[in-house]
């Protein structure tokens, strides 16, 4: 079984057995970035335990089965890994050809969210309920397609050797295609995802070599946009309250500030070693809302302590370090841009998610990559890992 670019990249090898092929010096398995893969798997595994602990007692959610969310998380991870393998098998270069189609589908999906097909969860109209207990959050996939469509446009003429850096026209065009889905997501309103997308665009522009004016301009536009959004009252009250509560957590400990306060108590009470898995009072007492998704890090903080929560940070660090290496070592600008976009995405989303539980960022409904419960997010991040692996696998062996 060979894909267009994937499992039979060895161009000069004679016919060999399947096992031998996999273990050969130049095989895909050998060329995979194993620290990246293992760190991602470890994060997903820790995530499964934390999700389990957070939902074990939530009978109103787990339909009487304490392991319900554990198995769902494992299943999501499995599907994610399969998606990663599929992505590697197809290869990012193949996908490059399909980017316009993927982009179109993802934009249609988020448009569908705005129709009666969409569902509102936690104030954001961001979901499509598929049925059977499954629902889809298309904004997660948009993050990938924005990276891909911008990379495709920005790298096209550079990789072709026409230009050293993308010209203004290309940058403008790529920004247009990025802005289109962002406006739709803003209407949901899913402000958290928009924030992530802005940072992704910034990372993509930086890595593309676009002129400093574009980068600085985008930062300026982001700030102006934020001010405008606040001034025009586009934000819902709950979103404004989140910022108010962030500015002053004591404002209303039972109301808006309650989440962050309880989250901080949970994490703070963990100490160095933590209470032990399943032993966190805040977790078993269900004091922290949304604990299996947005506030999953509080379970780690309380039950695994500074050592466990620090391990999650370290594993994220490994993922981001390996992704950075991949960005720097690939031969094509397209790969570099894709990797940089993914880094911006993972890094900002992790920082925002963990930062809000630690009280240094305002609350936004964003999952922690790999760790939080949630299918769409899990699939999207594993596809991203697939893209990173594919970029690494497909670069010429340099050693």
């Amino acid at each position, binding site marked *: 079984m060979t894909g267009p670019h994937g499992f039979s990249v060895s161009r000069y090898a004679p016919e060999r057995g399947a096992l031998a092929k996999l273990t050969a010096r130049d095989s895909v398995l050998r060329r995979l970035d194993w620290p990246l893969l293992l760190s991602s798997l470890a994060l997903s595994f820790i995530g499964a335990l934390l999700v389990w602990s957070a939902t074990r007692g939530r009978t109103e959610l787990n339909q009487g089965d304490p392991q319900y969310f554990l198995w769902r998380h494992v299943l999501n991870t499995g599907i994610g890994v399969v998606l990663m393998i599929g992505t590697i098998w197809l290869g990012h270069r193949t996908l490059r050809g399909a980017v316009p189609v993927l982009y179109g589908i993802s934009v249609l999906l988020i448009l569908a969210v705005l129709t009666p097909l969409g569902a509102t969860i936690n104030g954001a109209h961001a979901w499509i309920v598929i049925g059977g207990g499954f629902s889809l959050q298309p904004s997660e996939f948009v993050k990938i397609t924005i990276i891909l469509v911008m990379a495709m446009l920005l790298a096209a003429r550079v990789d072709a050797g026409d230009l050293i850096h993308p010209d203004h026209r290309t940058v403008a065009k790529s920004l247009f295609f990025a802005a289109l889905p962002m406006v739709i997501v803003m209407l949901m309103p899913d402000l958290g995802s928009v924030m992530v997308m802005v940072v992704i665009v910034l990372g993509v522009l930086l890595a593309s070599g676009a002129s400093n004016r574009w980068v600085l301009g985008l930062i300026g536009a982001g700030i102006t946009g934020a001010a405008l959004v606040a001034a025009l009252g586009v934000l819902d009250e709950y979103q404004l309250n989140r910022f108010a509560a962030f500015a002053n957590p004591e404002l209303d400990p039972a109301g808006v500030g309650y989440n962050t306060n309880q989250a901080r108590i949970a994490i703070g009470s963990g100490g160095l070693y933590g209470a032990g898995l399943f032993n966190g009072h805040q977790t078993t007492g269900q004091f922290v809302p949304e604990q299996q998704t947005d506030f999953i890090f509080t379970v780690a903080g309380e039950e695994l302590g500074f050592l466990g929560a620090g391990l999650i940070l370290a594993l994220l660090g490994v993922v981001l370090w390996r992704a950075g290496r991949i960005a720097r070592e690939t031969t094509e600008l397209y790969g570099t841009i894709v990797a940089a976009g993914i880094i911006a995405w993972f890094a900002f989303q992790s*920082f925002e998610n963990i930062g809000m539980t*630690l009280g240094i960022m305002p609350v936004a409904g964003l999952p922690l990559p790999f760790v939080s419960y949630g299918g769409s997010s899990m699939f999207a991040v594993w596809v991203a890992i697939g893209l990173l692996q594919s970029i690494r696998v497909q670069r010429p062996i340099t050693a």
Partner: protein
Amino acid sequence: MSNIPETGRTPRVQIRLIIIQVLVFSLLLTLGGRLWYLQVRNGDEYTAEARSNHVQQVVQPAVRGSILDARGVPLADNETRLVVSASRTELMKMKDDGKAVLTRLAGVLGMKPKDVMDKVRLCDSQTPQPCWNGSPYQPIPVTDEATTQQALTIRESSENFPGITAEPTAVRRYPAPGSAKTSQVLGYLSPVTDEEIEKAKDTDSPFLRSDQVGRSGLERTYDKALRGKAGVTRYEVDKLGRVMGQTESDPGIPGSDLVTSIDARVQGVAEYELHQAMKTVRDETDKITGRKYEADAGAVVVMESRTGRVVAMASQPDYDPNVWIGGISGKEYAQLTDKNSNYPLLNRAIQGQAPAGSVFKVVSASAAVRAGYDFNDRYNCSSSYSMGNRSFANFESRGHGPITLGDALKFSCNTVFYRLGHQEWQRDGGIKPKKDAHDWFYRTAHDFGFGAETRIDLPNEVSGRIPDRQWKKSFWEANKDAWCKQGKKGGTYVEQIAYESCLEGNQLKAFDSINFAIGQGDVLITPIQLATAYAAISNGGTLYNPTIGKAVISPDGKRIQEIKPKAHGKLPIDAETISNLDKGLRSVVGPGGTAAWRFGGWPQDKIPMRAKTGTAQVYGKQTTSWFATYTDDYTIVMTISQGGTGSGASGPAVRNIYDALYGLDDEGNQDLKRALLPQPQKDLPKIQPDGSIDAPTVKPYDPSEQLVDPAKSNGQQQLAGPPPVWRD
């Protein structure tokens, strides 16, 4: 590693990738630092906060200990009432929030379902009474007057009443054995306040929100011992208040019992006689004012002479202590604290103070002896004593010629003490005191325990007042501005006094010393001080701290903590002087003495009685009656405000109390079978092996028993005795 080569990447991109990498790692480091700060540096703080988040406590109140009299008769105990309570935690688990159960319960209790539901709802700003103001984890009482039948119905079909309990619960009760209310001595309870909880939080005796706290009297002094310790079970609860487990349970300790030296029977007699004496004297006309005596307040103390233990203590007006049970109503409280009711909450035996009058003469006689005068020398009891152009008359302006100090006590001769007081004042330098002024009269008063608390085991005792040079000075400092403003030379009496006080109120004048020698003027004493001092004369000179508590007995009866009599001083006179005083006071009840007419038929040879009468003048009021007496065993002091003379108003009552103690009739025949307490009660009541204490029954006091011929004495007879020439 391969760089830049055949790729399209430029140094610009390369540098930017490194910038991204650095940015990413600084974000991660920020998170790590913040994590360390929260978990390691401030971890303890959050751990404590987390604990308070998820632990709720349920309190099983401790049964408050009883207050018993010297023989074990309960003066304050608990009665069991059937209390039906509902557990909110249980009810909230039900689909309909327990509505069905509460409706069924209302049916059983014969209440309206709405009333029951209102009682178990939680109070908040929008909820009017009735509602539950306590912890939602505490069973909420629905009624405390359930019948046995109702309780049985609930308990036998517990499956129909989940979360409902019907349990006997202890409620405070003041049974008033033999109609001895002992109101002010026992005191009362009321719910603990927020400030008290906060204040006692870190002590070894913290309060619980459900606690009742002793507010006055013995309930307050011995609050800690009586209260015991409530049992506390701590439950871990989740965010919705569902119980997840029991963390720890702290078994309660029931309160200890307090055995007192009060004898309920004697207390009953004392209360009755005080009340009766005041009632009787209100029918008498005061010769000075021409009005009937007001007799607005009074107190009596019966004390063991050799220990300072209080056998009975009554104060009028009094009240029924049961009024406090189950929360006092606003109307009832207003009545107890109203001016028109003359403040029945005051225990006038320790909180009432008045000028002493002639009962003070034992102090003056002792002072004279200390100053060098011989007790048995002769001192002129003239009909009046002149100082400058002022004349101080003897009582009814009668003279007795030269008499001993003992006779001066017997006749209560004022002029003898006027002269002694005046002479001593002159010897001390008069208005300008010498450096080493002895101030024997004032010093002796202090040494007898006046002007200071006796340290009785009751709260809020007052100290009285000895108007010595020091006091004069500080009192003048405090009041001179007002006096100077009000004073007017040659104005009304009050204005003239104010004028003089403004000018020289800081000086101890001859006038002051002359008045002080007979217990008049600014001197104020309390009945308990007087009893302590006379008991000291009786017991050979020891001033005991009066005590009511005798022993604290643990609920199992195993640990008995006795409260021993403690002395706080000795009288400043030698045994000979004490003996001389004693003889003088004996003669007061003998022929010619001021109290003789009240002790006709008293078996003086068998039970020697000593007494001193006192009639203190109070500006703007009728005279205060004082009567201080003692035998070898007991000291009895009675006072009646605006009650006339010492022997007149208080004499019969005090005599009747002695008669009851010793089992005497009016003719002095002793019947030990009838005697309530011919000897002070030494032993503690018998404690059964199970810790319970047997209580003898108490018959109410029947005053007619002590009369020789009930038909002859209709209450008028005693008043209609020979008009006393020498009574005060």
